[in-house]
């Protein structure tokens, strides 16, 4: 065996170029399906766990998947808003007992979702704890997820600014400066990649409320067009206010935690029978969603199998041609006294070296894909 290893190693080392091409071809061929399978499994587990941990979502009637992704992963889909009064309605209805947590996730700060919510309730529900700092004490303050803080290079005492969605509607999408007062411990889910604010701050970012410059207090609204960023400070916080019916201020979804199975059934019956709302059980919708993904993956697998078969045939041809080219070498080794079995062993080990190299590519590539996939896929 040592002799075979020696010859195989010498051969592969002498023909590095050829060997590397073979390794790369096999590695890339195996990497694609392996990485896709790993990413899907990882997402199935992570997204499934988050869905399982959320008993119910209530939101506007529309696409179930959009609402699910909006409420759990803060992906701004094409869902309509529901009024904040629905939270009160849910919690005060004597027919059932439930806790309702509003979620407003329509805006971003440097591509990181800004999530407006009832921070105390949301953090308690998700079991989030602080790595640094604590909860906001006034509007305009924010808590940032671990991964987002790392990526943006910010911590307590720093700030992020809400992105403007519509540059031509000055009354909306305030470029509000958010002062970070807390950084969360890592959670390995969507909370890592979010900036959390209270509902009022989210509404101000959305343009539903505004403040006034101190010198113009009572007469002139702060003008978004004249400043690059608006900051809520202890000095001006009292000037911020909302016009109109505050019970109609929007949220993109409501997370509902019923007290029991009966409460959940009653809530589902109540809100699935209305024209405006829908009630989801996230785990069920997630199963449907992953079912769709897996169906697409089966098509992808079939395609990979066909391409793979073609590559395997090509590799077999390369090996056959290589054996033909090396017939004289085998003959020499045999004449010198080398057993035929050693020659076969040598070529098997050469193939094993190529396969091992390909597997290294698969392992490293899969790790890289798994590491970058949360940013690329955004969930």
């Amino acid at each position, binding site marked *: 065996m040592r002799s075979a290893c020696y010859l195989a190693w*010498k051969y592969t080392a*002498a023909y590095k170029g050829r060997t590397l091409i073979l390794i790369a071809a096999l590695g890339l061929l195996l990497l694609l399906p392996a990485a896709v399978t790993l990413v899907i499994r990882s997402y199935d587990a992570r997204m499934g766990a988050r869905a399982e941990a959320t008993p119910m979502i209530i939101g506007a009637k529309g696409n179930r998947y959009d609402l699910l992704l909006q409420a759990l992963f803060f992906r701004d889909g094409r869902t309509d808003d529901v009024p904040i009064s629905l939270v009160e309605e849910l919690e005060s209805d004597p027919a059932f007992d439930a806790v309702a947590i509003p979620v407003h996730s329509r805006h971003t700060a440097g591509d990181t979702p800004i999530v407006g919510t009832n921070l105390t309730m949301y953090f308690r529900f998700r079991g989030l704890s602080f790595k640094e700092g604590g909860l906001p004490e006034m509007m305009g303050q924010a808590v940032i997820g671990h991964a987002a803080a790392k990526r943006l290079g910010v911590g307590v005492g720093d700030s992020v600014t809400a992105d403007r969605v519509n540059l031509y509607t000055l009354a909306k999408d305030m470029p509000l400066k958010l002062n970070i007062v807390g950084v969360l411990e890592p959670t390995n889910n969507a909370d890592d990649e979010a900036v959390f604010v209270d509902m009022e701050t989210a509404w101000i970012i959305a343009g539903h409320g505004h403040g006034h410059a101190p010198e113009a207090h009572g007469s002139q609204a702060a003008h978004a067009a004249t400043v690059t960023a608006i900051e809520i400070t202890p000095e001006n916080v009292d000037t911020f206010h909302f016009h109109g019916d505050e019970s109609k201020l929007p949220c993109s979804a409501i997370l509902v935690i019923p007290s029991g199975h009966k409460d959940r059934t009653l809530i589902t019956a109540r809100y699935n029978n209305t024209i405006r709302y829908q009630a989801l059980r996230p785990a069920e919708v997630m199963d449907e969603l992953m079912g769709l993904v897996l169906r697409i993956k089966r098509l992808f697998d079939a395609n990979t199998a066909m391409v793979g078969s073609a590559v395997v045939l090509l590799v077999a041809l390369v090996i056959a041609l290589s054996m033909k080219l090396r017939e004289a070498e085998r003959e*020499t080794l045999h004449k010198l*006294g080398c057993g035929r079995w050693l020659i076969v062993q040598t070529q098997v080990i050469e193939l094993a070296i190529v396969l091992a190299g390909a597997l290294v590519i698969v392992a490293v590539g899969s790790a890289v894909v798994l590491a970058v996939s949360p940013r690329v896929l955004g969930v």
Partner: protein
Amino acid sequence: MIELSDITFAYDAGGFTLKAKSLAIGKGDKAAVIGPSGSGKTTLLHLIAGILVPSQGSVRVDGQAVSSMRDKARRRVRLTRMGMVFQGIELIDYLSARDNVLLPYRINSALMLDRAVKERAGALLDRVGLSAMAGRAVSGLSQGERQRVGICRALITKPGLVLADEPTASLDDASTASAMDLLMQLVEEDDATLVMLTHDKSLLPRFDRVVGVDKGLVSGGVVS
């Protein structure tokens, strides 16, 4: 001592048959085997080496009946007691000159590759003027240089019997003379028996004896 008696060998595919009634080459002899192309010289050499096995008769090397051994035992005899130099040189292109010389030790666990062997390989390469190229891949060497590496490989195990199959056939006159001088010197130093096939009659005076092969018939013991 090599003894062939009542040998008959026929290739499966063709009608060529080699016959040798009786041939004996003594220890330390230098025997040239001559004959026209296709006469059976290489077949005779392969029978002595145990690469081929006669259908009748026996081949004995140092008293051992090589022709009746199993393949593994014949290979072992070839590796440990014989050195072979080939017409086509037949080096392993992806190995360096030094690694080619040490190849018999690499492919046979019965041979111990120790410091002394490595030093001998270095000394042999130095002797043939290739010490500076010892680490270089043999694919970059000239034909003459490659054949000198082939001679070193044949002699690295200090074999009792050196079998050379027209080792100068692909060399020019200068390289032929140099390779022959070297082969003869090294064989003499190790007191080995040499059996060499050749077409070149000018080389015959260097040998103790000449064996003729013609149309598959071996006529041994012809004194040069």
